[in-house]
């Protein structure tokens, strides 16, 4: 992404402005759109003119009819991508450009940086760069080379959300009468392209009869996800991705649901593991629990059953089925009470006036999969804010068996001093949840004597805008604390737990899976070390790391 930016002083261009986000934020705080410039400072009555060009960040070509918003004055660029807005008293102004088919740099980055322009006189040669969208288009054919219409195409990839890698579907569409599809508005990134012969309207898998059909196929035409080729799309790339689907035999999956005797079997669903949106019709005998799923292509599936026991309590069960080249029989899905995990929150304070009621926490469980969570089936099992009125009333319900990273986020000036499950330190090891009546609890201890860490980020001795991470040592599962600096590079963390930290400053953290220590490993040696005690207030300067 570095190619898209140029930090002042810029070698070739007089000025490059960061676009987007800051201006939106500014609009929101001003709360009023004015057609006149809106100065932040105003020293004299002289007004100045801003001139510049909007260009494609990859080709450098001017972009015509882009909408430039400078200090809330709107103007379209001319045929040469130029704009000229005047009437600006001295001051600082947000400036942005937009155009369908292009992204503002800030949309690609999680960092809010230098996005304001300080006007002291007329300015010319302002260059606003817009990043062109990526396009993936192609044509789906059958084994005879005939175009296939109505094939469900899906573009999926990972997005880093709060430093964690999560699978996401970016877009979905059906092929047209010529078997063609076209995805646009794609940001640079890594994508997987899949084709499934399914009905978009009903969600019922219709690609199979008992004579076989088309399994879910991944670009460039393989039926195993492990063999799929990821598409690395760069800005402005127009990628052609044609591939063929092949009719394969279909199989039958049979089995039974057990464990609800005296109760009632409610639902049994069979979903494809890669794309849970694909469900296959299940024929279910509710009284006996026997089921059959016909027309199943080779692949990996999960069956989810829900039932009620005789008292009306909810029961759940699941089974994973792998279909290779024959029918699968004897699948048993035992339903049982879903696991509930009580979270016991305790507070400790040296301050007699501290309000325990202000200690509310959010608990999030995310699947801890070996290999840094680089798994398409990774889902958050539970997340959400919960009020903890009586310090013990918080329960996470319906947790599926598995291993989870646990994250507890407190509010109101508290930090998490320790997080345990029995004797397991959940800052160092994941939580293991078994089936049925396993008694798992989480104990969180909160304190309110956190430390403050402030500082400046610099490059070659000059202050520089950045995103700053405070990484706690010895607690590999603790998500680093993150903040953005001001445009003068100043940052400040509050309520940090006592401990040893490595502080890192990045020019951008797009695509950085910072909650995963493996992803940070290469950077940790470039950070600044600091040890914080209770109620400490320290200052630190951090050198910028360019990504």
């Amino acid at each position, binding site marked *: 992404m570095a190619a898209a930016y140029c930090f002042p002083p810029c070698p070739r261009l007089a000025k490059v402005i960061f676009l987007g986000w800051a201006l939106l934020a500014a609009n929101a705080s001003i*709360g*009023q*759109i*004015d*057609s006149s410039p809106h100065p932040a400072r105003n020293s004299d009555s002289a007004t100045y003119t801003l001139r510049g060009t909007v260009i494609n960040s990859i080709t450098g070509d001017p972009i015509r*009819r882009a*909408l430039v918003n400078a200090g809330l004055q*709107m103007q*379209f660029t001319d045929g040469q991508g130029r704009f000229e807005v005047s009437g600006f008293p001295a001051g600082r102004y947000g400036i942005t450009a*937009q155009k*369908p*088919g292009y992204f503002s740099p800030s949309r690609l980055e999680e960092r809010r940086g230098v996005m304001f322009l300080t006007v002291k006189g007329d300015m010319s040669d302002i260059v606003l760069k817009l990043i062109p*969208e990526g*396009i993936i288009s192609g044509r789906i054919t059958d084994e*005879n080379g*005939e*175009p296939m*219409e109505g094939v469900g195409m899906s573009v999926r990839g990972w997005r880093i959300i709060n430093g964690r890698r999560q699978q996401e579907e970016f877009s979905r569409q059906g092929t*047209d*009468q010529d078997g063609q599809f*076209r995805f*646009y*508005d794609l940001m640079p990134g890594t994508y997987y392209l899949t084709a499934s012969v399914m*009905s978009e*309207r*009903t969600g019922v898998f219709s690609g199979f*009869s*008992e*004579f076989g059909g088309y399994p879910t196929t991944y670009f460039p035409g393989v039926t195993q996800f492990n063999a799929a080729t990821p598409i690395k799309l760069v800005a402005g790339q127009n990628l052609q991705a044609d591939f063929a689907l092949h009719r394969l035999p279909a199989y039958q999956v049979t089995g039974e649901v057990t464990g609800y005797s005296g109760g009632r079997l409610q639902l049994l669903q069979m979903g494809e593991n890669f794309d849970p949106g694909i469900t296959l019709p299940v*024929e279910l005998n509710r009284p006996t629990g026997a089921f059959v799923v*016909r027309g199943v292509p080779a692949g990996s599936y999960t069956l989810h059953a829900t039932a009620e026991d005789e008292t009306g309590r909810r029961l759940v069960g699941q089974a994973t089925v792998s279909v290779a080249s024959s029918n699968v029989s004897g699948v048993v899905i035992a339903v049982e009470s879903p696991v509930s995990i009580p979270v016991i929150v305790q507070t400790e304070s040296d301050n007699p006036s501290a309000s325990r009621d202000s200690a509310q926490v959010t608990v999030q469980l995310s699947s801890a999969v070996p290999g840094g969570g680089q798994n398409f089936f990774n889902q958050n099992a539970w997340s959400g804010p919960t009020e903890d009125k009586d310090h013990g009333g918080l329960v996470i319900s319906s947790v599926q068996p598995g291993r989870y990273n646990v994250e507890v986020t407190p509010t109101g000036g508290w930090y998490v001093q320790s997080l345990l499950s029995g004797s397991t330190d959940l800052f160092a090891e994941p939580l293991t949840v078994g089936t049925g009546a396993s008694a798992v609890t989480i104990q969180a201890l909160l304190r309110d004597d956190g430390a403050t860490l402030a500082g400046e980020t610099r490059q070659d001795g000059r202050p520089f805008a950045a995103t700053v991470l405070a990484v706690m040592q010895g607690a590999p599962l603790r998500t680093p604390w993150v903040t953005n600096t001001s445009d003068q590079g100043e940052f400040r963390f509050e309520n940090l737990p006592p401990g040893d930290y490595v502080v890192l400053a990045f020019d951008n953290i797009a695509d950085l899976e910072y909650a995963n220590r493996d992803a940070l490993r290469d950077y940790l040696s470039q950070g600044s070390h600091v040890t914080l005690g209770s109620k400490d207030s320290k200052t630190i300067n951090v050198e910028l790391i360019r990504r």
Partner: protein
Amino acid sequence: MIRISSPVRLAGLLLAFFTVVVAQAPAASSQRSEWQIAGKVISAADGQPLSHAQVTIRSVADNNFAQAMLTAGDGRFLFRGLDPGKYVLQAKHHGFVTEGYQQHGSFFTGIAVGPDLPSPNLLFRLQPEGYISGTIVDEAGDPVRRAQVMLLHKSLVNGEWATRSVNSTTSNDQGSYHFGQLLPGAYFVCVNTQPWYAQTERQITEAAGANAERSPLDVAYPLTCYQDVTNLSDATLIDLQAGGHASADLTLTAVPAQHLVVRMADTTSVSAFSAMLSQQVSEGNPISFGVTFRKVGPGVFESTGVPPGNYEMELQFYDPKAGRQQKAQSRAVEAGKDDEIDLSEPAPSAAVSGTVRFIPAIKPPAHLFFTLSHGESVFAAEISSHSEFVFDRAVPPGQYEVGSSFTGGLFVVSVTATGAKVAGRTLQITSPDPVVLRVVMARGVGEIKGTAMRDSKPVSGALVVLVPLDPANNTPLFRADQSDSDGTFTLPSVVPGKYTVVAIDNGWGLEWKNPAALKPYLPHGEVLEVAPEGRYNIKPKVQDF
């Protein structure tokens, strides 16, 4: 055979085809599965056989039974080993419209096999696929992406001519759209979108008031129909030939957005509320979008920008006195005439309420609805346990057909009104005065089965229509079906009363809800009086169209 779900978009037909629910005796399982359905898929254009067409067969009785096969080089298909019963067939071939066997709109011919029935040898005609495509650009010639493009089709559906929205798509990054799988006929294309650069959110504060300056980019695109007109009545009809291709490019031109102003009692706690505006593209085919109203002065609210036009506005806001969302108000507004809407005045739409008398007297079941329908828009009010109903949306003036949800086999026997005119099952609302209805309902809808006959032989594929007395005022009582290969048909949920059943060979061009068009067929129809819960089996004589 008919699909039960009534108005379905053309593109949805393919799937709706398989949601058929028709009463049918279960196939005797002891019998040997020795029946078969054979046939040949040909092009309706030149009669040439179509190879590699996918033919799908599904059992009416057993929803789990479905088979598909590809036709051979001579277009032939053969399904063997079938249990006796009725089957529905569908054929699909690249370049042709996917259809059910002898499909006419929502009707098609089911294929019956079993003892005493001839082994079917079908000629399955597929129409070459027509398509309409085009490009949408803005006033600067830039492609308009993500525009909602609507396809309207003027056709004879359920016995009456109507222009209905049959499909909708979204333009891509090149501004292109494509509607495929089209039968020949009359089409219109309309586009609903807003400029990417529009700044219609004025963010007016109370201090700046209504005098706040409007942005030059406070603009909107009106609904635009091919060829660049803003009204469907001025639109160019696209006459699509069988297998033909029509091109319909549109250029959108932004116009200054209009801002609706609402006045209401000055409740200081309300600073904003939202409303839905809907615009009729054609009768009964609305498009809707949301707007936000913000306070610009004491008791004065102004909307975000909307294109000029006539709308039905429905609004909902938090009433602090009542402590809940206030019931939606609905009224007609015209954006572009600086219309000020005074909410302290009663809405110029009728408030409709009523009482129901059940014969015999019963407590009404839950989820029983009384309905007023107009084209494809249906107003529904649930009948309370006290046999009363109130429409929570005001009903604008117009002509409505009265009906019910048929819950528990209940049907409307008669309706009388104060504040509106009633003729048969047609209600005419002419003024904004409140309308009070007195409805009589009874239990026991009947069902008519039968076989369409000519010269004592069953006729396949005939139109069968159940015609009520005074047809002009009783359109909700009509029922229709297409006879299956053994001549059988079913007319479900028949409201007790006197009817004539007519069967017409190839009557698919008949405007059968029009009494004048029906008249010549009625004398040769079969008259019958349907009693509550009545079950009938009749053999109407097939007439020529």
